[in-house]
């Protein structure tokens, strides 16, 4: 997979999530299920590394980028992680103009709820992975 494709796929995941780990379901869909560039085990390892290191929770995507494309992949992932944050600048302006509209607010809230539920579905798979890893190590 090219570095640009890696960046765009990770950007798709980060720009459609509303928390550091919120990108996890989309990343699994694209990198494990659709393109098969990393395994479920590597995805779990990336989460472990991301949660073990200090700093932003969403930085686990750098580990995904590294596993998928080495150091260039890690740099592409870093770019994909920071790009959505810049959207806060236009949001600063738009907030007072549109967020008071009930339908806009409700749409944003619904997306946050959906991303939380998607995250819960990822937790189920991660729990199964950890049990499977323990079984292989100690079994």
């Amino acid at each position, binding site marked *: 997979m090219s570095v640009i494709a890696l960046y765009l796929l990770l950007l798709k995941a980060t720009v459609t999530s509303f928390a550091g780990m919120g990108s996890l379901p989309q990343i699994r869909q694209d990198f494990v299920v659709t393109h098969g560039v990393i395994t479920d085990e590597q995805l779990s390892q990336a989460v472990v590394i991301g949660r*073990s290191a200090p700093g932003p929770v969403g*930085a686990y995507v750098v580990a995904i980028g590294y596993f998928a494309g080495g150091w260039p992949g890690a740099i592409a992932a870093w770019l994909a992680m920071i790009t959505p944050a810049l959207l806060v600048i236009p949001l600063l302006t738009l907030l007072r103009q549109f967020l008071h509209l009930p339908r806009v607010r409700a749409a944003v809230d619904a997306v946050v709820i959906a991303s939380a539920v998607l995250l819960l*579905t990822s937790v189920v798979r991660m729990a199964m992975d950890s049990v499977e890893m323990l079984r292989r190590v100690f079994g």
Partner: protein
Amino acid sequence: MRFDKAELRTLGWLVFYDVNRTLGGLASMELLRRSFGARGWMTDEGHALFVALSRLTPGTNILAYCVALGWQLAHWRGALISLAAASIPASILIALLSATLAQIDRYPLVRAIIAIALIVATLLVLVTAWNLLRPYIKGTNAARTGIIAAIVVVLVLMKVTPVRILLAAAVCGVVMASPAAPPVAEVDR
């Protein structure tokens, strides 16, 4: 506000120090509030606005918070310095850890540690999901949240991709919009 080079360096240092000595999220935001508040560079109202905005911005909340903070103080220069200071050190550390792990993950002891760490990470992800969901299950919001959650679960079982699920959720939100709902910025997250 016009920032000189020394103040920009201080801005970068404070963001680097406060974000990279915690595990991100609200803890980092609280440290930043104290550091910048002590210098008169941020009010409590500004902090509340940035927290709300960071929740609404796609991606990692603490990075959006840092960009908003830097932008407010020194526009593009402030935003980019804050973003770099918050994201580069952790990213380098994570890439190095990934490279190390790729070399040593064949050893049984390492695999056992990873398996146990994965259980802890799973619980932390569960907490993240709960923190996102919690403000929406109070009072009259509970029914609406339940409906959206049920729709999401059905779509997941139908193997619909996450992006389409989020779009479907946005449409549901518009359809179920209630004029009485509190503004997002006032919701206790």
